């Protein structure tokens, strides 16, 4: 399972998403788009979105902290 999350340091929904990953032992790559201009362009291009978090789960792009969708994609139950 490959999970990438595009974040900014001050984004509370990013923090909530990362908490969900940690609670279920899901490894993820974090890209801080405030610091990393290349990651910022990549995120905007891939999601068509000017806002964080953007989360990529095995190639499926989820915009925002959409918990039900993330649980489904990550096969988290309960």
């Amino acid at each position, binding site marked *: 399972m490959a999970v990438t999350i595009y974040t*900014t340091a*001050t*984004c*509370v*929904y*990013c*923090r*909530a998403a990362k908490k969900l990953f940690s609670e279920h032992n899901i490894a993820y790559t974090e890209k801080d*788009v*405030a610091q990393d201009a290349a990651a*910022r362009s990549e995120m905007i291009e891939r999601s*068509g*979105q*000017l*806002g*964080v978090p953007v989360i990529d789960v095995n190639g499926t792009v989820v*915009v*925002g902290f959409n*918990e039900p969708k993330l649980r489904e994609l990550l096969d988290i139950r309960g």
Partner: protein
Amino acid sequence: MYELVIIGGGPAGAAAGVYAARKRVKSLLITEGWGGQSEVSPDVQNWIGIKSISGIDLAQKIEEHVKAYAGDVLEFDEGSRVVEVKELVLASGSGGPKFTLVTNKGKKYETRSILVASGGRRRKLSVPGAETYDGKGIVYCATCDAPLFQGKEVVVIGGGNAGFESAQQLISYATKITLLEYAEEFRGDSVTREAVLKSKKVTPITNAESVEVKGEKFVTALVWKDRKTGETHELPVQGVFVEIGSIPNTEFLKGLVELNKYGEIILDHKTARTSREGIWAAGDATDQPYKQNNISMGDAVKALEDIYLWLQKKKSTT
């Protein structure tokens, strides 16, 4: 059967939780998350007892405090939202009222009393283009997304505290910030206001009504109307930061308690009682005019004191 269900985990709900547990009122607190709307605030400077704290850290402190009382007296249903409340037994029936609550996850609870502390949520922009460009230049969380507007020109709609806070964060990133206020004058605390208006990047405009958001793939301009002259102007921007107040989360109470025309719960402010016996309310969901964390907490405590006395009285008469 609970004695009390508290709806909400913001300052009001959490304060009520602490007091309920300390009074050993058998309670359940249902919340989607902790800390309320200030969670996205970069820096809260008016939380009495703490000079400066981020919204996220404040939320965490609130959660920790109320959870210190978790146990047989105070239980939690987290990540859930109440979607329906029904009165099972009428207040005039034996032993007072009884209610059922249903959450968005289908869980059902029974209780003798309810404290509504469901707060408010962000009001969204409703002009043409607002939906199309949501997330494509229109931003509702400056704290989250301000860094994405590095080197860009932006507009902030709303000249209250939240609007000034957004502008303040944008000063570090954007090249030009126009601040629009619908009314004759800006609102917001003088401290933040003065700090923002000092910046050469900021252009403040009052009497300004937003008319349309224009764009291609992303936002390219905001059209606004001068309410005094009636003239419209097109402002070239890549970001539109919206801070135009909040809407009370009270839809699930329609028909059960009296709401005013804004959807706020009408309270007896001495007791925090709603129009229906057995239901109390506190915080931003109510018609209390000043939406402040410190007030929400105090009002919830006031409600809890009245709930406690009411429950004691019910117990002694049944």
